[in-house]
């Protein structure tokens, strides 16, 4: 009888549709830098949480690179225990407000959700964001900050260094601090957060949210040192001499690639890294209120099809461009960007120029004036499994532009790795490290995130930071390498 009731309940639950995310109207948001998705209300969150089947064997958890106890945190939402729900997430994830926003849930936890087989999966990411935002809001209303263990946590164990304060570094630092290690977190820029502050735009990830997550980490007794370009100001060798017992390198993918076509050094041609760093980290979108300038451009072409390309295109639109073209050599189906980002970009009026590949940037008086592209068609699948783009001879044409942004990928920055001769790198310059433990070819040196994998996602980098922290703990306890 009880089993029957249970199954009835499940049937009923399936009928509740996935709660949509409230969003700014596309026409309005395309001209402002405020967050696109405004977040669930309490009502939305309770309704969405009630859709969860509370599976005996929850597959969603296995889909999460840091294995958050998703089932439990959602259950706590249904019980309106929001603070406890956030604590449950934080057991595994130090950056819930960030992950709730930028994780590709559709390829991870939500992909595994049973409800997704016949209908739509539970909106796990939106719920994660809700509980994190709710707690920030509650504390801010009380004029309080989010603090780990009421600020009573003191680290007393061995000294460890984490280099790079992006998602991998922040996670690793938090995990090590929780275990009581004295962590120094080194950052090259003047602000911590790595790609979360210089790369991902305000309208997708508000910087005050990132700051709150970082403040929370600092409350774990993590010593953050900004303006430290490691390899230049201090070497790994010096860190060890200075008493650090282990080092985690998470310097990211911070070297912009260019296509190598004529005209790429013309004025008005940017790497996506530069364009986004100016706008995000330096707040050039507020120029002249903030001092760093950026070329706004009337006709902007962004080259590439990944999330960075989408971020650049949507930033250009918000800076006031009339036409923003997204030039991609394959078709829309092959774009590596998240579907949600592509949809958002299209809704906002970004013009997709797919199966188009730039061959030259034509200048006028030193400035980019026209982007010359060649049309492409798709051939047989290549090594990446995607259909190979083939140029159609004689199909070249010009697009009027004044700003061109190259978003064709980023590589590992060699600034630090080149100062550690014994450190093994792969042929692209990424650090060779064990995927499970983060161990490198140098004793006591661990690595993770984009510097190991090449440009990937925030949550994968966090997963690497987490695994490395566990492995560093083991190394520090046993001394075994």
């Amino acid at each position, binding site marked *: 009888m009880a089993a029957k009731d249970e199954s009835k309940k499940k049937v009923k639950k399936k009928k509740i549709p996935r709660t949509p995310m409230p969003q700014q109207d596309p026409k309005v948001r395309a001209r402002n830098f405020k967050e696109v998705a405004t977040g669930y209300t309490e009502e939305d969150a309770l309704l969405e949480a009630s859709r969860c089947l509370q599976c005996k064997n929850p597959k969603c958890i296995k889909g999460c690179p840091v294995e958050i106890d998703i089932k439990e945190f959602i259950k706590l939402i249904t019980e309106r225990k929001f603070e406890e729900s956030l604590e449950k997430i934080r057991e595994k994830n130090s950056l819930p407000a960030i992950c709730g926003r930028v994780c590709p849930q559709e390829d991870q936890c939500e992909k595994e959700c049973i409800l997704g087989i016949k209908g739509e999966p539970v909106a796990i990411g939106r719920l994660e964001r809700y509980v994190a935002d709710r707690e920030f809001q509650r504390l801010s209303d009380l004029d309080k900050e989010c603090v780990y263990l009421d600020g009573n946590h003191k680290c007393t164990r061995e000294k460890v260094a984490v280099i790079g304060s992006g998602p991998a570094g922040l996670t690793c630092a938090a995990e090590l601090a929780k275990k009581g290690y004295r962590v120094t977190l080194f950052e*090259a*820029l*003047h602000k911590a957060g790595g790609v979360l502050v*210089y790369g991902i735009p305000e309208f997708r990830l508000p910087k005050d949210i990132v700051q709150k997550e970082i403040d929370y980490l600092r409350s774990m007794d993590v010593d953050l040192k*900004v*303006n*430290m*370009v490691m390899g*230049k*100001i*201090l070497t790994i060798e010096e860190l060890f001499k200075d008493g650090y017992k282990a080092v985690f390198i998470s310097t990211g993918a*911070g*070297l*912009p690639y*260019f296509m190598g076509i004529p005209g*790429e*050094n013309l*004025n*008005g041609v*940017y*790497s996506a*890294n*530069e364009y986004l*760093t*100016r706008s995000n980290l*330096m*707040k050039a979108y*507020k*120029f*002249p*209120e*903030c*001092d*760093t*300038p950026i*070329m706004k451009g009337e006709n902007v072409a962004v080259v590439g099809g990944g999330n960075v390309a989408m971020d650049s295109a949507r930033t250009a639109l918000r800076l006031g461009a009339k036409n923003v073209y997204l030039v991609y050599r394959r078709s829309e189906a092959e774009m590596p960007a998240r579907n949600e980002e592509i949809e958002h970009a299209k809704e906002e009026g970004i013009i997709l120029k797919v199966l188009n590949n730039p061959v030259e940037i034509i200048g006028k008086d*030193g400035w980019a004036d026209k982007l010359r592209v060649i049309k492409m068609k798709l051939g047989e699948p290549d090594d990446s499994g995607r259909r190979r783009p083939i140029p159609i001879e004689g199909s070249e044409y010009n697009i009027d532009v004044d700003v061109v942004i190259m978003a064709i990928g980023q590589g590992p*920055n*060699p*600034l630090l790795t080149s100062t550690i001769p014994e450190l093994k790198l792969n042929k692209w310059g990424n650090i060779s490290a064990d995927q499970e433990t983060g161990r490198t070819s140098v004793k006591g040196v661990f690595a993770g995130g984009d510097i190991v994998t090449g440009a990937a996602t925030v949550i994968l980098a966090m997963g690497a930071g987490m695994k490395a922290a566990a492995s560093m703990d083991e190394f520090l306890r046993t001394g075994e390498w």
Partner: protein
Amino acid sequence: MFKIVRKKELAPDITQFDVEAPLIAKKALAGQFVVIRVHEDGERVPLTIASYDRDKGTITLVAMRVGKSTALLAELNQGDVILDLVGPLGEPSEIENYGKVVCVGGGVGIAPVLPIAKELKAAGCHVVSIIGAKTKDLLILEEEMQEASSELHICTDDGSKGYKGFVSGLLEDMLQKDIIDEKTSKTGFSKCWAIGPAIMMASVVQVTKKYDLDTIVSLNSIMVDGTGMCGACRVEVGGKTKFVCVDGPEFNGHEVNFDLLMSRQQIYCDHEGICYDMYQEECKCKK
């Protein structure tokens, strides 16, 4: 936060700061630079390290007031702090005993030439230095350059001190007199460093090409992070794209595309004007 321990006006609108930065002072070498930021909404500005004192833990920066950021810097006094300071960045100068060398510094470019001349002399080189400015009041670090060089020559555009004309003119006269091989026009100099405005470096390079004299220039392109992350500073050297911040700032002057450098230096001219005008208006209002 980096404390200014000494401030000195070197010339109208050119100021020298000794700044407490022990870790940078420990590592800094001639030819390297730092990036500074003076307030929360400020730009990141690259400045070459003019000197360093490892014992005192200070570095010396020299900046000319050209826009809002440098104006704000110029307003700081002894005891004030620079919000952000990061370095040492870039590759250091390759210092060794080259025999007879010539170091050319123009305008505020004399500041970065100073540590190079010093270290070259210490390495055993015979250092002939040429420094120049528009007029004698704008000539900086004369005494220090005198001490750092085996011979010092001065030029001013208006002839108010020393040779009347550009540094490239005086250099050409000097090289002409020093030819040791008539066929190749090779001179007794084995290397030249030239640092100053792009146009000055371009004219020096034109001269030294004639005399087949290896010439190192230090490029002052626009930067953001200064660590190879953005590519704002890209230049063309020997037909290849290079990043000034990590591949430089010093390059073989004979291979640098100066037209491109000068064109790229102009990208934000209008923006900088707007920013500076607004700042000056604000200053007037305050007064």
